[in-house]
């Protein structure tokens, strides 16, 4: 073993030892690896159930106290208007029979994939205890720090089949109110429906685009009118009955269905006027109207305002299907004379 080999060995061993030591010191810091971006629903089914439960609890408390203000934390928009009105009527009458029953259990959730705000999720409830048809309820989160609140509800029209929606684990996309991939934009569809409700299916020019089932809002409004018109001597007495329904342009929410169409929820403001001869007295007909009218004296005029929440199915543009109403809630919210 000569000197060179010796030196080589020494160098080699020094390298081995120092490498081992250095390797022991340098333990690399892990770097955060962001997972895949979320593309699914904004709420899990569990979270949505919690939302529903929280809303139902709040509504139940308000119902019990018959206090509209108690709804505030979890009810908003047209749902709040209608519910508060119903509660005030119930309080005046001391009877809650006209307060819409909203089951607190959901049978189907339609959860949005919206990344921004507002976000709207939908739920179809179970049937009520009185075996009324299920309700379709919309919940809205207006801003990130806000809670989901009940924005609208409708009672489904018997015999109407709901369109299919994406699974709640996949999430459904929200549809803009001026979305033009549909047979009619959500806003237009609501306006056309309001026209049909106002004029009746026979007179409205939009009726051809709709497939109106029995027992939808048009029928309900006709029934209201016939209460007056069918009274003996209605025409002879010169009494006039007018009704006007208009769709609100801002209170429109829509969500995509599985077949590319959309579920559209909106609000129609209805106004009916009964005007009899001078000096005649027009009584309020329903209990709700009576309660809303209050102690005011009867005159020859009766104005009633309705806040009607409606739900429509609007098919995709190239679809053979027609727009059809899915449900509505027809509730008088004001009366005057």
């Amino acid at each position, binding site marked *: 073993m000569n000197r060179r080999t010796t030196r080589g060995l020494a160098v080699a061993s020094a390298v081995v030892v120092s490498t081992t030591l250095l390797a022991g010191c340098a333990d690399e810091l*892990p770097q*955060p690896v962001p997972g895949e971006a979320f593309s699914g629903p904004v709420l899990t089914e569990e979270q949505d159930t919690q939302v529903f439960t929280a809303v139902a609890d709040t509504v139940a408390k308000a119902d019990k106290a018959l206090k509209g203000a108690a709804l505030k934390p979890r009810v908003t928009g047209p749902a709040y208007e209608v519910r508060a009105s119903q509660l005030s009527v119930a309080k005046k009458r001391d009877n809650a029979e006209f307060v819409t029953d909203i089951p607190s259990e959901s049978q189907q959730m339609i959860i949005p994939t919206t990344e921004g705000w507002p976000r709207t999720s939908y739920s179809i409830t179970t049937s009520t205890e009185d075996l009324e048809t299920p309700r379709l309820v919309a919940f809205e989160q207006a801003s990130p720090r806000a809670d989901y609140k009940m924005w609208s509800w409708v009672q489904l029209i018997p015999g109407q089949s709901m369109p299919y929606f994406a699974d709640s684990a996949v999430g459904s996309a929200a549809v803009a109110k001026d979305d033009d991939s549909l047979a009619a934009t959500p806003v237009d569809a609501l306006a056309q429906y309001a026209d049909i409700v106002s004029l009746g299916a026979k007179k409205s020019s939009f009726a051809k685009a709709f497939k109106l089932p029995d027992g939808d809002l048009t029928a309900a409004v006709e029934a209201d009118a016939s209460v007056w018109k069918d009274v003996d001597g209605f025409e002879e007495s010169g009494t006039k009955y007018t009704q006007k329904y208009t769709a609100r342009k801002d209170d429109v929410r829509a969500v995509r269905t599985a077949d590319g169409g959309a579920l559209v929820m909106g609000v129609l403001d209805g106004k009916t006027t009964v005007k009899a001869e001078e000096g005649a007295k027009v009584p309020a007909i329903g209990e709700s109207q009576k309660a809303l009218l209050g102690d005011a004296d009867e005159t020859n005029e009766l104005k009633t305002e309705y806040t009607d929440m409606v739900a429509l199915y609007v098919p995709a543009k190239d679809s053979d299907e027609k727009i059809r109403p899915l449900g509505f809630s027809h509730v008088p919210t004001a009366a005057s004379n």
Partner: protein
Amino acid sequence: MLQRILGGVLVLIGLAAAALGVASATVWRDTDTVVATAKPTGDGTFVVTDPGVLGLVGGDVTVSATVPEGQKVTLAVGRDVDVAGWVGNDPYSRVTGLSDWENLAVAAGEPADADAETNEAPKSGPDPAGSDMWVAEASDENSVTLRWSDRPGRWTLLAAGVGEGAQAPTLELSWPRAVTTPYLWPGVGVGAVLVLGGVLLLVVGGRRARARRADLAEATDSAAPGSPDESADHHDDGPSGLGAPFAPVRPGAAEAAPWAPASPAVDAAHEGDAPAAPATPEEPAGDASGEDGAQDDGTARDAAGTAEVPLAGRLLRRSRRRQRAEATDVPSDPSDAAPDALPGSPDGPAPTGAEAPAPLAGMPVPAPAVPVPAEPSGHEPVPAEPTTATGALRMTRRELRAQEEARRAAEQGGMTRMLRAITGSIPAVRPQQTEQAADQGAARPDTSTPAGRAAAWRATWGFGDTSRTGQAADPTTENDGENR
């Protein structure tokens, strides 16, 4: 001397490496949990982690947040967009990762809306608790702890100091982790190897030094008689013999030096035998070369370590040389044909020697090879003489095995040899037995017939005079031979 110093250094380094390896698994072993803290920077009452920070070290993380006495703190985990939306344009601290194993890297957060200016820090810290968007949340006074198991997606943590005059909480994330000790066994292993190597060097160095002293003494002794074979044992002295063992023989070169295996080099050393002796068929050439090779290597390489081997070898060689000397006296040398016949080759003694030389001369022939069976006619041994066989002998199995062992011994590398010499695990004198067997074989009559083998057996165990009885065509002996 140098070897001993190097050996000592290697031992020290080895011990140090082993100690470091052990230390890496004990005193320097990482803790079972990684705990990293984040101190908020700047304004705001929120601390938000980047996506991926919660699962930075392990899937399960325990988050705890503390705020000064008397304040409330809330922890919430949500989707990154939800948290970003909730924080909005308020100022916040952003945890971007680990800055070292004990601290989290914190930066000032940017507003969610890129165009918007960061708001003034709110006077009262808003409480994220109770939002429908969180998948996990906890809220308490002073400090709060939240456990989170990472799941797919960009989950982020929002920690908020709540209430009047709130401050952003101090975050502490702790992950359990599986601690490995990757340097324990490598360290100990490398250390052990180094120590062994060092010890080896020390021992060898010591031995060599002793051997050198002994060699010096021996050299002065042997120089006087001038015995040629003694000088052949020193391997520095025999460059012609060992320098190029496989160098081809130049045709016509009668010099014995470069021919085939190592063995003849020894023979070559004594000039007297050179041309004739190797060609004589007195003994199986393979045997001779194998043993000689083994002994020669043994003597040459570790004169110090295996003192017995060269001694025995030398003795044996002398005895064989005596035999050879007798053999050369016998006039029945069949291969007087060409002087350049391969003397060490097993083919050499073949009776058809005339055609062998020229083409074979150039071929390096490795030491042992099965000898070509002789012509049946040409191997009639004469009992009286020990060197009667004229053709190649057919070896018995025992002889073949012994030959193989000898060859292996000859082939074994220096390290094994050295180890053997040190540990003595295998008797260093073993080849001697082979030598004896070979010698006997050489002296023995023909073993190609069962009777001959029986005779050999008797010779081995010392029954009677083999040279006389070996030829007796005794049927019983023949049967014995068959049964073996």
